[in-house]
């Protein structure tokens, strides 16, 4: 395909739009994942995606919707279990993530469906449809709005939960909101970078932005910008050298992170 032709092809612009949408909201959310050390949490939610896809297939739902619902359900279970705090979060996450993965695989064989595992694991950005795009932008807008209104509360909650609680922050609801936002993000990011690489898209731009920031807001904004840059670079690489889009995006983010490390404090 000629370059001019490519620029006119719809799928490329859809892919770009989808990638940038996800990168924009994963910036600030990724910052919270880094500040609160929740990388493993994102992983756990992502592990339940296979179950979501299967349920979606069985119930004739759009995969993104079904995965979103499954992730939100898992997030609720996690918040509930964490309140009781008999096991460490680390252990809880380990139990849930692998149980969910196993349940997903068992469900796949029970329902006798054929899942395109590779696109589930690594994303299928170039196959984003207009319906996908609509759902993704609605979800991203919802996350962005929640983030905006809860920003200060989320920060206070991240610094010191008890201090925040004494000062009137509804900590349980804030925690719930944060987990649900992450769950929703994972549902829409699955199409972009796939289940395997979602945590990377969350963590790497935020970590790269750390060196260049002295306020939380700046770090969040820069994380979004770096995420967008990674999407553009990754898609370009994918078009030019025919590499898989999701991994190319994550690789680009990794390279940007590396460059940021050369900057002195």
């Amino acid at each position: 395909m000629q370059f001019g032709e490519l620029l006119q092809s719809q799928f490329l612009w859809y892919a770009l739009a989808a990638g940038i949408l996800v990168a924009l909201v994963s910036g600030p959310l990724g910052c919270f994942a880094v500040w609160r050390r929740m990388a493993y949490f994102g992983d756990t939610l992502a592990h339940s995606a296979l179950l979501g896809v299967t349920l979606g297939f069985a119930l004739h739902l759009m995969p993104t919707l079904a995965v979103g619902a499954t992730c939100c359900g898992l997030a609720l279970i996690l918040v509930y279990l964490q309140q009781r705090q008999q096991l460490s979060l680390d252990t809880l996450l380990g139990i849930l993530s692998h149980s969910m993965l196993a349940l997903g695989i068992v469900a796949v064989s029970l329902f006798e469906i054929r899942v395109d595992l590779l696109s589930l694991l690594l994303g299928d950005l170039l196959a984003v449809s207009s319906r996908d795009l609509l759902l993704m932008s609605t979800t991203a807008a919802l996350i962005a709005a929640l983030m905006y209104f809860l920003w200060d509360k989320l920060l206070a909650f991240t610094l010191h939960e008890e201090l925040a609680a004494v000062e009137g922050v509804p900590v349980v609801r804030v925690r719930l909101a944060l987990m649900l936002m992450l769950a929703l993000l994972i549902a829409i990011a699955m199409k972009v970078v796939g289940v395997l690489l979602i945590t990377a898209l969350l963590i790497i731009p935020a970590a790269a932005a750390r060196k260049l920031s002295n306020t939380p807001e700046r770090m969040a904004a820069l994380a979004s910008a770096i995420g967008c840059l990674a999407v553009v670079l990754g898609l370009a690489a994918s078009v030019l050298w025919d590499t898989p889009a999701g991994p190319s995006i994550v690789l680009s983010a990794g390279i940007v992170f590396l460059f940021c490390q050369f900057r002195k404090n």
Partner: protein
Amino acid sequence: MRLLLGLTKATSGSVRRKPGLRIGYMPQRLQVDASLPMSVQRFLQLGQADLSAERARAALQRVGAEHLSATALADLSGGEMQRVLLARAASRNPQLLVLDEPTQGVDLGGQGEVYQLIAALRDELGCGVLLVSHDLHLVMAATDRVLCINQHICCYGHPEQVSRDPAYLELFGDKVAPYTHDHDHRHDIGGDIVRPSGQEPLHNKQERGK
């Protein structure tokens, strides 16, 4: 303390709080992940948008930490962090200051200073101060009532007359004095009450765990 702040629910009994009570809480410690970039000033303003930069700086000045205004939270030393936490609690115009081990991580000389600061803040703000402390001998002379808790309330009342020991005064200033008091019982190493043999139990079970 957690009960009073409403952080835990009471298994028995009840807590009555004045409606709309403004509490300034100073937690025992605040550990900030180095990945979170936040200046001391921003920390003071977080959650109270109406606190102007000048008032934030004034609050820091009152605890002798105005030079830390632009410092990142993660870079503070233990003693600096305690001062910043105290400034934050005081900047909310509290009716009640709740301090959890305010001298944690502060060296011995600095501890006296912190206690003096708390006493000064109380006079300035006209607020009540509830303070939890393990360093029995440093509990302020300015303390009006002492509640000695070891699983249950051991004793309760006014601290004794300030010790005028010159060595203490020199080291900790005139606001700090040892609090000496007698128990009618002892605790073993695990905190359980050792009952002298042949005597009635000294505490009734219901008192435990208050």
